[in-house]
């Protein structure tokens, strides 16, 4: 009896600790769901956003059985390399450095980057115009890379979360925030706190500065060449049948 009991305990423990994620042929796709309107968790705990809907459409078009997971940004890249996840979709900018670590699908969007400031701030967006001003950005993003490279005379404040720069802007501790235009409009300008603020300076993309990257794409484990093909095929389908265009209109109004 005791042996039976012990054996049962051992099996339970082992199954809890070694539960393989790979049980079925499911494709595990991770996203850092803290970046509306691209990816976030809604009030009902559901993943929503442009990237999430696009990924679902791509999986459907390519007949892949996808499992989209809300993961933490920390460790998402090593997890992809190690095979914990098969792919990542999180507004990932394609860069040379990242290309060395994992494969990318075809680029599916060229995001627009914009500055936002107080309506009467009158700041000219040039390296000289922002000299002495305080710019808040999310750390490790293309925005961070851009201001670091091109605006050496501004004070740059870097934050871990996407929302923190806006808090600094409303409280007056920062003069400018650089972000994705869609993110600024959705998470800030449309809210009460954003009423006294406006987009300023030119619309910028990867064509204007290499720091903004070649565009955004889905990152895929390098070893999984079959998945790269499948996802590209799915992307081509949603591009042709108008799904991608419809999503862009829905989320960015373009």
């Amino acid at each position, binding site marked *: 009896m005791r042996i039976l009991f012990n054996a049962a305990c051992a099996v339970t423990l082992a199954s*809890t*600790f*070694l*539960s*393989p*994620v*790979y049980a079925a042929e499911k494709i595990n796709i*991770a996203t850092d*769901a*803290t*970046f*509306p309107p691209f990816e*976030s*968790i*809604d*009030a*009902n*705990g559901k993943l929503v956003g442009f990237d999430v809907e696009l990924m679902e459409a791509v999986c459907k078009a390519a007949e892949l059985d996808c499992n989209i*997971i*809300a*993961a*933490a940004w*920390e*460790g998402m890249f*090593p*997890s992809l390399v*190690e*095979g*914990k996840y098969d792919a990542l979709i999180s507004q990932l900018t394609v860069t040379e450095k990242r290309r060395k670590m994992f494969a990318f699908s075809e680029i599916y969007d060229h995001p627009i980057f914009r500055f936002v400031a107080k309506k009467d701030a009158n700041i000219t967006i040039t390296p000289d115009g922002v000299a002495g001003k305080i710019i808040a950005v999310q750390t490790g993003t293309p925005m961070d890379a851009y201001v670091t490279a091109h605006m050496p005379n501004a004070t740059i404040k870097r934050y871990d*979360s*996407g*929302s*923190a720069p*806006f*808090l600094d802007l409303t409280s007056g501790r920062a003069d400018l925030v650089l972000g994705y235009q869609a993110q600024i409009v959705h*998470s*800030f300008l449309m*809210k009460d*706190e954003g009423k006294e603020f406006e987009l300023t300076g030119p619309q910028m993309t990867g064509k204007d500065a290499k720091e903004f990257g070649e565009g955004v794409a889905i990152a895929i484990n390098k070893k999984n060449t079959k998945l790269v093909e499948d996802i590209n095929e799915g992307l081509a389908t949603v591009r042709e049948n108008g799904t991608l265009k419809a999503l862009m209109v829905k989320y960015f109004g373009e």
Partner: protein
Amino acid sequence: MIGNFALSILAAGLMTLLLALTSLALATSIGLAAAFAKLSGNGFLSGMASGYTFIIRGIPDLVVMLLLFYSLPAMLNQGAEAIGLDIQVEFSPIAAGIATLGLIFGAYMTETFRTALLNIPKGQIEAAVAYGLPRLRIFFAIILPQLARLALPGFTNNWLVLAKATALASIIGLHDVMFRAKAAAEATSMPFTFYLIAAGFYFSVTLCSMLLLSIVARRTAAGMRELAS
């Protein structure tokens, strides 16, 4: 909308409590085993237990968690690949969380239990042995009731720290209170509201624990106060 987000954060409280209570059970088991190992007089066992508490107490919780979740499976998989085995070992966030918190707080529990055991008068055990009581009887009738009373303050402390340390598991993607609070904060750009709700949750766990454990303390200490004074 705020209400729904708040509800989703509190619903994740189940996950936090599951992690906290399972880790507590594991930590208590490890703590008891290692405390007895340290006091066993067996050089090998006490050496192992000392090594364990020494190493674990010297590494930050976060580092142990990241090592267990990311590095250990990768190492095991590479090892398996090297010897030609086609298996993929993978820890789920909850498993890695329980293992980490169990291991870390097991070390603190070890010290708590060891001190408590040392405070049980040796004469009582010697008397029991002289009366010919079997070892299990000695453990359950003499050691355990006193161990419970003596270890309770330290145990309470460890539990309160553990309950809050569960928030670390949000880093490895466990959908606990902290993870959901962050998600809600970013989805709505209202960090204060949702981090305050999370803070309220952890605080109420602490409050309930303190109430419950003070009742337990009164029970285990029944009859002791008169003796002490």
